[in-house]
């Protein structure tokens, strides 16, 4: 099973993609998945301090578990309105 990672705005521009499929590893958390994404796309590292995370469309914390098949969104600071 994979985890789907969604990128938006400047992250999508920098990574050159809006969507990354990454292999699930037992015990995965938001933090561990995010770290593997950053290893594959080191250009995203500088964004990390400001990111929020959403798992299946709900905000979650870095320590929260990520089940296989989940969708994890990396959310840069929002600027809607």
């Amino acid at each position, binding site marked *: 099973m994979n985890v789907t990672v969604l990128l938006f705005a*400047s992250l999508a521009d920098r990574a050159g993609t809006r969507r990354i499929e990454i292999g699930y590893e037992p015990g995965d958390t938001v933090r561990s998945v995010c770290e593997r994404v950053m290893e594959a796309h080191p250009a995203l590292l500088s964004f990390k301090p400001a990111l929020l995370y*959403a798992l299946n*469309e709900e905000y979650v914390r870095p320590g929260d578990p990520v089940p296989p098949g989940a969708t994890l969104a990396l959310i840069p600071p929002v*600027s*809607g309105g």
Partner: protein
Amino acid sequence: MLIRVTGDPLDPAEAIASVGSPEAGAIGVFLGVVRNNNQGRAVDHLVYEAYDAMAERVMREIAEEARERFELIGCAVLHRTGRLEIGETSLLIAISSGHRAASFEGGHWLVNEIKKRVPVWKKEVWEDGEEWIEGPESLGKTRAGM
């Protein structure tokens, strides 16, 4: 409740109609519109991007919370995405209430929460470049960090 993220133009008449009620004595409407300048720079147009499904979910949560907090009767929240020209409406809110105070206090609270929590991003496009605006004051910060 009318909650929508859409690429189509936002229509205040639709939002107002959706919150109408015989018990309502006041309807408050807010339009966020594209301004021709930001922090001293001339803006040519904006591009809004949303995490659509999550944005609608968070907008609905905020609307429900506003309804309880301010005893609103009806609440509509619409956000537009894609390319927007100067003067076009990016955010449209309409709320109805028994009395007028709630329409101002509730509206202000709603807009603030939407700007804090809804996963939407805007890119400013100038004549000579463009930049994703991330966070309320990010123009300077992102530049410094890049």
